[in-house]
């Protein structure tokens, strides 16, 4: 496909890559970050901070295993709090990667190439954080394997009617497929690194990871097919995971949970949050590592547009939720909406509206999309907004349900926060390791979109 030169602005805002790159320069530039260039001081600082925060997670989990989830702020009636809302938040963030890799691959959106490796890694690391929560939120986490259908002497299966059961399948499948997809995508690049690495240990490790890749035409043929099939496999998962996560709530009878709009609304929200996180991370990264020629302004614009579109769907979700709360005529639903807007957690609700509906409207303006600092701030606001959304759904629905005699309140405890901050630490720890040891942009795919890769017909 020829790269169209749009008339509306400088070329680098629209092209998937900047002009002037060749096969060799692409390979050099990306692989040198891992192999040749001196690790920047900033990397060490960032890694150290993340690693310390990661220890906070280990400390929390240790204490949690010894003492019980009473450490957290959960109670009766609010038996799910930060645990589940952070789970949903992380899972949501983990949506952009597969969407970019799989769906955009199938839709032949070439601009995805610069960001897919990075987004996939982010997905995987976010899912790793998310996966920890459902495990740790159990009263008896050491029995979590009972949720898996395995033949056992107890003669009992998990309950297939429970959305939590579906969650186990959805999340574990998603994690597996994302990991395989990511790894398969890395194989040709591992081979490149193997060939270029100068120290023995690196050659051995990358050599093993490359799984004997020699780059023959047959390899490429098989590879392309496998990658496409995996993309096909991963595509429905993008929709299914968050659909099923939303069913954790929609299947419940609690006002504020029991809504049929939840699946599409959650999926849109997840993509929204995912793209916000990709932008949040990409903007500083391309600056630090000088990747402006790979990740161009066109990428920024496109991601901002996806955010705007999904943000509008999410906004529609909020409006429909409020409308049906009123229109249903159901006194519990009505009260739920009223309570969200005027109850003790009202400021969470209004902050959510501000973050998730009002803020993305600025993305209509091209000037704002072009201003990276503003774009970066907007993506922070959206990430916070999506966290607030989960807080509003999980907590404000539970804290006042049917019988006023059992109404309560919820406040995250210190250990809720250490766990959350710890997962952020773990996420960035993994991310820093990824940046240091793996090519953050797919080398071989970048080569395919260079003008030199065009086949004359």
């Amino acid at each position, binding site marked *: 496909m020829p790269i169209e030169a749009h008339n509306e602005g400088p070329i680098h805002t629209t092209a998937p890559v900047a002009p002037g790159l060749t096969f060799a320069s692409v390979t050099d530039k990306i692989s040198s970050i891992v192999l040749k260039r001196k690790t920047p001081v900033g990397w060490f600082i960032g890694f150290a901070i993340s690693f310390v925060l990661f220890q906070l997670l280990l400390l929390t989990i240790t204490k949690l295993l010894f*003492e*019980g*989830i*009473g450490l957290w*702020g*959960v*109670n*009766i*009636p*609010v*038996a*799910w709090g930060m645990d589940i809302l952070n789970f949903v938040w992380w899972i949501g963030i983990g949506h952009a990667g597969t969407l970019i890799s799989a769906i955009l691959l199938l839709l032949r959106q070439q601009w995805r190439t610069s960001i897919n490796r990075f987004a996939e890694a982010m997905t995987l690391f976010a899912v790793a954080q998310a996966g920890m929560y459902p495990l740790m*939120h*159990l*009263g*008896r*986490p050491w*029995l*979590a394997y*009972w*949720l898996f259908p395995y033949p056992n002497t107890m003669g*009992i*299966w*998990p*309950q297939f*009617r*429970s*959305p*939590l*059961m579906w969650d*186990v399948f959805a999340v574990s499948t998603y994690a597996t497929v994302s990991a395989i997809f990511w790894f398969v995508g890395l194989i040709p690049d591992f081979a490149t690194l193997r060939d270029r690495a100068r120290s023995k240990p690196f050659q051995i490790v990358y050599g093993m990871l490359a799984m004997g890749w020699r780059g023959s035409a047959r390899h490429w043929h098989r590879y392309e097919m496998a990658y496409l099939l995996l993309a096909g496999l991963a595509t429905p998962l993008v929709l299914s995971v968050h659909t099923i996560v939303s069913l*954790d709530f929609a*299947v*419940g*009878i*609690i006002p504020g949970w029991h809504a049929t709009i939840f699946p599409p609304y959650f999926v849109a929200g997840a993509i929204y949050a995912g793209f916000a996180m990709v932008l949040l991370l990409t903007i500083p990264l391309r600056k630090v590592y000088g990747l402006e020629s790979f990740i161009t302004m066109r990428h920024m614009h496109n991601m901002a547009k996806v955010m705007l579109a999904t943000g509008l769907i999410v906004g529609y979700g909020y409006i429909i939720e409020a409308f049906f709360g009123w229109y249903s005529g159901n*006194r519990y639903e*009505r*009260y739920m909406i*009223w309570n969200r807007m*005027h109850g*003790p957690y009202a400021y969470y609700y209004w902050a959510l509206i501000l973050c998730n509906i009002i803020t993305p409207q600025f993305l209509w303006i091209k000037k704002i999309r072009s201003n990276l600092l503003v774009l970066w701030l907007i993506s922070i606001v959206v990430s916070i907004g999506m966290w607030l959304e989960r807080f509003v759904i999980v907590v404000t629905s*539970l804290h*006042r*349900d*049917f*019988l*006023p*005699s*059992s*109404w*309560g*309140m*919820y*406040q995250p405890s210190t250990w809720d926060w250490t766990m959350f901050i710890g997962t952020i630490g773990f996420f960035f720890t993994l991310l820093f390791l990824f940046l240091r040891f793996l090519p953050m942009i797919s080398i071989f795919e970048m080569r395919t979109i260079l003008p030199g890769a065009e086949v004359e017909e």
Partner: protein
Amino acid sequence: MMALGQPVNTIYDFSKADRILSLDADFLAILPGTLRYARNFAARRRITEGKHEMSRLYVIETTPTTTGASADHQWSVKPTEMENAALAIATGLGVKGVPSAPSTSGLEAIARDLQQHKGASIVIAGKEAPPDVHALAHAMNDALGNVGKTVFYTDPVEANSVDQRQSLQELISDIDGGRVEMLVIVGGNPVYNTPADLKLDKDRMFKTKLRVHLSQYRDETSELCHWHIPESHYLEAWSDTRSYDGTVTIVQPLIEPLYQSKSAHELLAVFTPQYDRKPYDIIRDYWQHQGQAAGAGGSQQQGASPVATPSADFESWWRKCVHDGFVPNTALRTRSASVNPGGLSQPNAGGTPAVPGGSPTVREGSNSGTFELVFRTDPTIYDGRFANNGWLQELPKPLSKLTWDNAALVSPNTAKQLGLEKTIGRKGGDIYVDTLKITYQGRTFTDPVPTWITPGQPDGVITVHLGYGRKRAGRVGNNHGFNAYEIRTSDSPWSASGVQVEKAGVQHLLAVTQLHFMLEDRNFSKEDRDVLRSQTLEEYLKGTPAGETHDPPPDDTLYHPELFDYQNQGNGLNYAWGMAIDLNNCVGCNACTIACQSENNIPVVGKEQVVRSREMHWIRVDTYFKGEDANNPEATNFMPVPCMHCENAPCEPVCPVHATVHSAEGLNDMVYNRCVGTKYCSNNCPYKVRRFNFFLYQDWETPTYQLMRNPEVTVRSRGVMEKCTYCVQRIQGAKIQSELEGRKVRDGEIVTACQAVCPTEAIVFGDVNDPNSRVSRLKAEQRNYSLLAELNTKPRTTYLSALRNPNPEIK
């Protein structure tokens, strides 16, 4: 005493009373005969199986109580107004020789109503009411011809009835005069609870040379004694006692003393020549001797009726009494007492009571800044003797739902006047309240007193509960609440006026189990949630429905219909367990909660966990105040909420590991060892009756706790959900027994723990597949309804709506 000239014991027969007037008498909660009274009272108000008459209860009280909550008409008055209210009614009843007091239309209506039920009414004055009110109550009963019909006099139950205040005064003056060398304290905790003006404090204690204290706890008094003798619990030692009507009980121990302890009998025997006698011998010899004395025609105990013990065959008589638990025919004989209401003081300067018919207002100006103070024993830990009992500390107080603390009760108006506020915290069970500095006769509470805004509390009156502020109660009871004995004097033990009150700057954290919200979402719509149904008797008899009716939704289901068919279980027995709770009879005593806690090994979690809304009670009693005006609620209702055992239980399909499942008999079973603790079931329970072990709440180590537990019930570990099981262990026990005997379980054979203790028989359990069972008959009543029926959960626990029988003359 004032009215009758001599000490007498008054007992009442509520089963024959159609009209009851209570003058500050909390007869459903704290009198010696409370359980009997509550049962008889409830029987007279049970509107089931075609009965359509119920008694009418008027309560005039100085602080809201559960008795007031059960009343058809309740008014709150200041303690100083109580006597005038009593006088006005007495005048209306034509009691002779009483000074006339200004009346109101309401009081006149009460008088007329009582007069129409001569001989079938009761006027009862509370033990805290002043002597004048007692005198008036006796006079009114006399005028109504109730004596001998519903009201009976006997000799005092105490062996030696003395004025205890005077007796304490003598002791204190003896100690002060240095006339006491040895002080033997048998039970009690006088260092803690003697009145402020007769305080047996450290200085006085140290004036005596030898101090000995027999007590179950090493408490404040033991601390200041040379010898602390551990006292046997009444379940560990032989003893004897008398009930409210004088019936003698031989107290038989259930176990050998757990520790090396002595009973009071053993201690007192030390002072006799036979110093080493065992309690069993002491008790048995006493009753043997008593029999012989009776045979000789004399009574050992002054004032008590002689006990006819056949001296000939004492052994078989003794065995029978120990076996039956009481000595037959030992109730005190009724006697006559002449009522002399003369000598009553003139009406107080307080003016017309601000109640019946009048509008309650805060009377400011006249004595602004000074308040009246009401002292009451605590609804859960009584006078402090149960302070170290975790069950009772964590039992929510019936009206405030407060745990682990006492608070000064103030009315909403008074709170406004004093600028008191309460803020609901964010942890779930935490409420932050303003505190007061309360001064009476120059004595001030050491700590700022937390306040609790109480609907129905009279304006300008502050109620404080005794029993808290213990420093040496034990691990559980230390340092909770404030000590109301600090300013309580012997001349005004139950109420005081001229109390100085000042807002203290600090706030206090209270742990409550119900945050008190409006049922109607007033800010939003006028809709009632139709949770607690109540109506008047008149409406009920006319057939007016008490709440909404819900058409059952179509029975469409994706699941196999036979899975939920409780009629044909294929075992030929077809039990379907269910429960009916008659809200008309619930008096909010909370006994069900404690019985359940004891039966089902439910842990105590402590104030810090209640603050986090993690109390573990399987059955809670919800309290609802009705009406627009929080100062003057129209009615107060209680609703015990155990697990509903829904046929379409929302908790079941959401559990990923099948840890909560339905039994063939319709029980919603909880499988502890399968539970992994997702807590989804609790989230999805619309009644929020499930409880979670957030920590290891159970103490697995302490050996005495192991003895305490019910061996039939699993002791739950950390991380599992639990909830009411309908006492499944009792169901299984009865089923096994019936199978052994080759028959079906009989109706009434299974009694759940909550049902067993309910003094008013408000809880009925049984087989709903048997149309003749008591529970089926109750469920067939028009008043029967399901909580949150519109959710189609089909609860097996249903409620019968509450009824009121107001006097049509009183608006």
